[in-house]
């Protein structure tokens, strides 16, 4: 049973076909990187996996841990172990980060029949995670992502991933807008998360993130389908030659 299996996936957004026959298989313990030019469908893949409304599956199938993902609500997917790190995390004034994190964890625990963690133990654990990501603990008291810099928002996404410990983490351009130090911090968090029991689907434009998070597989997404797959050397080739050669060779 694969961690994630996508077969001939077709997805439309607002009536426009974006994914046109995408297939992908991931096993636990693997890190896959998805690269591709703008508009190729990378973020669409991330959103459709997470169950975002407005993304219509018009063909094909997705199976997560052997269970088909059909009309499941986003929360059901999350509780089953699927996590999406947003490219543009949303700001929610009036809801403190700590309150949000506790509500998220409680929802996971409840859905999986676990007792809620005591507030004291929870807060201690969250502060430790924040510290490991160089995220000022004061940010935990502020509104969710409110007034955070781009880097702080992305680190907050990684904090949530580490806290919720999903089985599959989909990181949608988590490196965009980050300086070198922030990329290293975020990469360290992802590497800490990696284990034989989970998988990471890394969507990125740049090779530089893959210097810090070494993928097992690299895929090139173009015009709604995966047109090339390989190991990390494929990313280096893309960095040197761009995407145009793929179109010519294809």
């Amino acid at each position, binding site marked *: 049973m694969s961690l994630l299996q996508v077969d001939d996936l077709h997805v439309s957004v607002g009536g426009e076909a974006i994914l046109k026959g995408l297939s992908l298989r991931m096993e636990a313990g693997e890190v896959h990187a998805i690269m591709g030019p703008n508009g190729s469908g990378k973020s669409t893949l991330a959103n459709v996996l997470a*169950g975002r*409304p407005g993304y219509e599956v018009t063909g094909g199938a997705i199976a997560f841990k052997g269970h088909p993902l059909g009309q499941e609500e*986003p*929360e059901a997917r999350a509780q089953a172990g699927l996590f999406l790190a947003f490219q543009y995390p*949303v700001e*929610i004034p009036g*809801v403190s980060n700590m309150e949000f994190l506790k509500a998220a964890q409680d*929802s996971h625990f409840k859905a999986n029949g676990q007792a809620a963690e005591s507030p004291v133990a929870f807060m201690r654990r969250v502060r430790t995670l924040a510290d490991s990501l160089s995220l000022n603990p004061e940010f935990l008291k502020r509104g969710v992502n409110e007034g955070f810099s781009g880097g702080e928002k992305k680190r907050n996404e990684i904090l949530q991933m580490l806290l*919720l410990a999903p089985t599959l983490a989909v990181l949608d351009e988590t490196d965009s807008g980050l300086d070198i130090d922030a990329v290293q911090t975020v990469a360290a968090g992802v590497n800490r998360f990696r284990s034989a029991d989970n998988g990471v689907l890394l969507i990125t434009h740049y090779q530089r993130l893959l210097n810090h998070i070494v993928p097992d597989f690299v895929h090139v997404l173009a015009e709604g389908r995966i047109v090339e797959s390989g190991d990390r050397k494929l990313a280096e080739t893309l960095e040197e030659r761009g995407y145009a050669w793929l179109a010519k060779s294809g």
Partner: protein
Amino acid sequence: MAGEIGLEALQAPAWLGDAGLARCRRALTGKLARETWKYSPLGKVTQALLDAPMARGSPLVDAPEQVRVRRFTALPSPPECRINLHRYPLAGIVAALAGDGWLAEVAETPDRPLRLPAATPGVAAPLLLRVGAGCRVEIEETDAGASTIADVSGPQRLGEVVDRATRGRRSNKAPVNSPQVLAARAPEAESEGTSATHDNQGTLATRVVLLFLAQTAEVRWSRADLAPAREGWSLLAAELDEDASLTFNHQSLAAAFQRLDVSVALHGAGARFGSTGAALASAGAQLDLQYVIEHIGHRTVSRVKQHNLASGKARCTFNGRIHIHPHASGADADLSNRNLALSANADINTKPELEIYNDDVRCAHGATVGRLDDDALFYLQSRGLPTAAAQRLLSIGFLRDGLSGPFAEQAANSFLQQLSAATSG
């Protein structure tokens, strides 16, 4: 129709005068009243007032010794009460019905907050509060009565009040505020120096407060209307002298008719007014907030931020008017009203108004009406929160953004309780 049951028979107290009362009667049917009461039933409210019982008792609970409280009728001469009767005719009607008023004078900073009793059903005598130069005063006003939204049986509570009033209509021809009628309207137990003595749930509660701030006086007023079944109309009319400052924080949980009129006149140079508010209107609430801010002096400043959330079949109205007078150079005004509708049946009306007669000013106003943000909702759901819980968290976040002052946490808890009751999951 207002006046059917004795409006014309009212007798004016000396400090209001016959001319003042006549002005009120005319204003009740005038164009301004029609505009400012467009979304609230002025006729029904007036009628309900005319038949409401008297709510008596001291206007302050356990007043600090630095505050001197007297009845108008105990004063050597009537105090000057500059109510804009053209805009607020009900204030004159309440004053006439009460037949008296309270004067509270603060000559030095009190050692503790001034506490107003919970608004009680019936007609309460107006309170004239004078804060002396340089005094700092905290005012607390909270109504967290046992009433819950679950107790509210239907959307037309004010209609019920009026029905009851009509059934009990007097047949005698005596003026409605004549001594014999006032005696009949008074609660059975009444003692001065105690707070509210009457709690006839479902009857309109009134509160009229006229506030005067002398030079550099500072008042922080915190108000929490957290008894959702209570029907009420309140007027806070404030006048500020030079460098005086009034901060008004209020929270409202409404499931019936509630109207708040706030009138602030910034007379003195450098006078400042700030208001932060959050309201949750549920069930069949008719929540109506009306602000008028007059910038009269130089360098006067006002900041108004109001967040309203309407669910069920609630109607939520906000009207914020900023008036910059010709000599108010350097005035700085900012008014913001954000509204969220949680249901398709909720009705939201918002109208920010600017009237500016000076070029050397800074004015900003904005109003938004919308629903919960889809992106934010998805964000929370993607973290495992069920839809209802995510909606609740976004709603309370929106309201919290408009909460401030000592009752903020209490209000947030009340809001959350109501939101939890209204949603499942």
